[in-house]
């Protein structure tokens, strides 16, 4: 438990819901998920370096139902962090701070991430799935 008695900052329950909250929370959540995902990338590269057997084992795990769900989730998390990250970079440049622009850009991040994910997995299916 916290060793301070003062109220701590995210008082999520007192705010009226708005899309900017969702994009902010999702950016952190996808960032943490992608951090966990780096372990899979390390595993994949090491397996590729270690030899055919290790790589086959990795590929079998990645191609299993659970692996595919994780990969699909990773794809969306990556695409979301990418789109919303670009939104943040644009805002860091001082642009897009009018409220309607802000809301539109937030929706653009969410919709863009879904569209990119569907494009990637559409491509995967179009070339004959993951097998």
């Amino acid at each position, binding site marked *: 438990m916290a060793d301070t008695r003062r109220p701590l900052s995210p008082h999520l329950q007192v705010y009226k819901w708005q899309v900017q909250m969702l994009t902010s929370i999702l950016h952190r959540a996808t960032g943490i998920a992608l*951090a966990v995902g780096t372990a899979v*990338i390390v595993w994949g590269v090491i397996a*590729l370096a*270690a030899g*055919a057997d290790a790589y086959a084992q990795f590929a079998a795990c990645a191609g299993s139902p659970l692996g595919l769900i994780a990969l699909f989730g990773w794809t969306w998390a990556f695409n979301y962090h990418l789109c919303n*990250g670009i939104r*943040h970079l644009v805002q860091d440049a001082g642009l897009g701070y009018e409220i309607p622009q802000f809301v539109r850009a937030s929706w653009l991040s969410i919709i863009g991430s879904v569209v990119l994910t569907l494009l990637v997995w559409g491509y995967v299916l179009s*070339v004959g799935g993951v097998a």
Partner: protein
Amino acid sequence: MSAKDLQHPLKRARGLGSAQSGVGHWWNERVTSVALVALGVWFVVLVLRLMHADYAAAHALMARPWNAVLMICFLLVTFWHTALGLQVVIEDYVHTRWKEVSLLMLVKFFAVLGALASVLAVLRIVLGA
């Protein structure tokens, strides 16, 4: 400050406030994120190309000089950006000091470990050791 304290306020404040490193952290996170826009998209395309390759083809694809160089760039920048991002999350939500410091250390250790292990793996692939 008590009225009896004869120390100058500036003397009392020095060394206690901001360590002046916040801008450096913020800027490094931005620089790595710009690099990752390009490197991340490249990585996804690489994974899509690896998907249908057998072991020999996958190994050969990764062993191409440009792929190896970009992969090492991607790995280093990814772990750097990840460590910076997780640091902020931990500083924001972990309010017990010893837990906070421990987690901050763990994140840095794992980031360096992951970066070194994966870069060594890419070097093994490209140099054929």
